[in-house]
């Protein structure tokens, strides 16, 4: 459904754009309907940049992003707007996603303004109510409130509801639960699970491996802007082939282990080299399991 092919992103930095900083290097993957694809990696690995490129909030330097075969990179405004009917995003910080001086339900109203200007008020209100109920919100408790009067979990659900008001096929969820507390987290996470049953593809960006394991069918591990390992969640987490993936998995704190226990031995990794050259190619090490390692 949504495909990325050899996507690169470099930023111009410095005076008059004299230097370049490459954030994403040669990334290719696809999301199928009804699938949650997790992108995992450390800070600065380029995972958020990928999410923003999929949402066309930043341009793609090289390569293409296609939705159902249609290249959407560098689309004009009207085509991009049509694209946003089918692809939407939810961001990390619920309190920054709402303009603090307006009521929170304005995010729903602007969707109507932009995409359904001819819909009748009563019909629209009914649709909003149904959608809010479907994400587990009580319309009476969240409508006509200011963002600071709602909790982070309510705000994030409302943003998911906003996306669902459109007939989306792909939802980009960029760290959407990292700012929520533990009890709300699992509800929002399960909500994402419900979305995939409706046939949505979800691009789930996270730094938390256990969340990725919990929710996703497939997982991508990124480092220094490139994919180091990808494939079915069970295979990548069960049998990590790349040293970085093994380190990452070893670093996850376990519930019954203390730091004073024998420290985890981390493997030596290649340092960050010239980011402008293509990263090591991915090799299929198993069915639906690729890793950037030599034979």
């Amino acid at each position, binding site marked *: 459904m949504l495909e990325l092919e050899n996507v690169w992103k470099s930023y111009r930095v410095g005076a008059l754009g004299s230097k370049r900083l490459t954030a994403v290097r040669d990334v290719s993957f696809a999301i199928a309907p009804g699938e949650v694809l997790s992108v995992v990696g450390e800070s600065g690995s380029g995972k958020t940049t990928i999410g923003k490129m999929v949402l066309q909030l930043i341009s793609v330097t090289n390569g293409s992003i296609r939705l159902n075969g249609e290249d959407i990179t560098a689309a004009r405004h009207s085509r991009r707007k049509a694209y946003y009917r089918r692809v939407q995003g939810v961001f990390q910080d619920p309190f920054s996603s709402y*303009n603090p001086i307006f009521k929170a339900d304005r995010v729903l109203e602007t969707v109507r303004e932009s995409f359904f200007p001819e819909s009748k008020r009563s019909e629209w209100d009914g649709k909003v109510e149904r959608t809010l109920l479907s994400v587990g919100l009580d319309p009476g408790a969240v409508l006509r409130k200011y963002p600071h009067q709602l909790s982070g979990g309510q705000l994030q659900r409302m943003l998911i509801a906003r996306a669902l008001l459109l007939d989306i096929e792909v939802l980009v969820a960029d760290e959407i639960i990292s700012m929520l507390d533990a009890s709300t987290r699992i509800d929002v996470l399960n909500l994402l699970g419900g979305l995939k049953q409706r046939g949505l593809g979800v691009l789930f960006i996270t730094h938390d491996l256990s969340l990725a394991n919990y929710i996703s069918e497939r997982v991508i591990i990124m480092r220094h802007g490139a994919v180091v390992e990808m494939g079915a969640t069970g295979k990548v987490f069960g049998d990590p082939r790349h040293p970085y993936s093994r380190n990452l998995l070893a670093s996850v704190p376990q519930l019954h282990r203390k730091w004073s226990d024998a420290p985890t031995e981390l493997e030596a990794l290649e340092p960050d080299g010239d980011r402008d050259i293509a990263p090591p190619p991915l090799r299929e090490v198993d069915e639906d399991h690729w890793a950037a390692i030599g034979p």
Partner: protein
Amino acid sequence: MTAGITPDAEVIGERGEHLYFALRNPKVVIGLTVVTALLLLGVFGPFFVSADPNEYIGPKSTAPSGEYWLGTTYFGQDVFAQFVHGLRSSYVVGGLGGGIAFVIGLSVGFTAGYRGGIVDELLNMLTNVVLVLPALAVLIVISSYLEVRGVIAQGIIIGLFSWPWVARAVRAQSLTLRNRDYVDLARLTGKRAPQIILKEIMPNMASYLLMTVILLFGGAILFAAMLDFIGLGPTDAVSLGTMMQQSMAWSSLHLGLWWWFVPPGMAITAIVGSLYITNVGLDEVFNPKLREM
């Protein structure tokens, strides 16, 4: 948080709250009253006096009386007529100069801050160049080249030179605001850049922008008075500054014609001072930490 426990005060909303506190802030009320009173005098006064304030109508150098409220000049011109016409010119210059500077400053600042990249660098360069230009020297040169200088021309010139600090401040603000997620969300809703600036970013800076208008307005009036006083004022009209310049040129201080220069001086001080007081008051309105409870 559920509906039941929300206190009513929060439901009023920020706008109503600001108006509420503004009307109860003595600085805002006093400042606005003085500015508005003088504005009304400037707008309606000229209809009741001679259309030509430079007309020689009465006895020379008479003190204020029932007939000539503010006396007459060395040449027998009615000072009150000059004063109300001068007030009108000052407000025109303030409005025009402040307005032009506001529009240019906002356009440059928002474009630079929101677009970023090369556009930002070029606009920032332009801003800095205009900022370091010695505005007074440039204005003197320009003003002395213009054969006929009117109030409008003066306002435009002042406007063209006083926008840079607005642009810089607006740019800095929009640089931070455009990285908020709600801007990204508005883009995902298919909004274009101008709509996002107008509907998402500007409302967040409304208090700041209001104060900018006030400061620009007062600054333009002050600058105009300065130009007038050094003889670069309008040649075809009377302004508060030219009144003071004329009174100085004909040694009214030595002749004791205080009614010639005190009213314009007081008026300029009152307008600019009241604007600044309003500004301080608004600061208290918009920043709850400064409010006196």
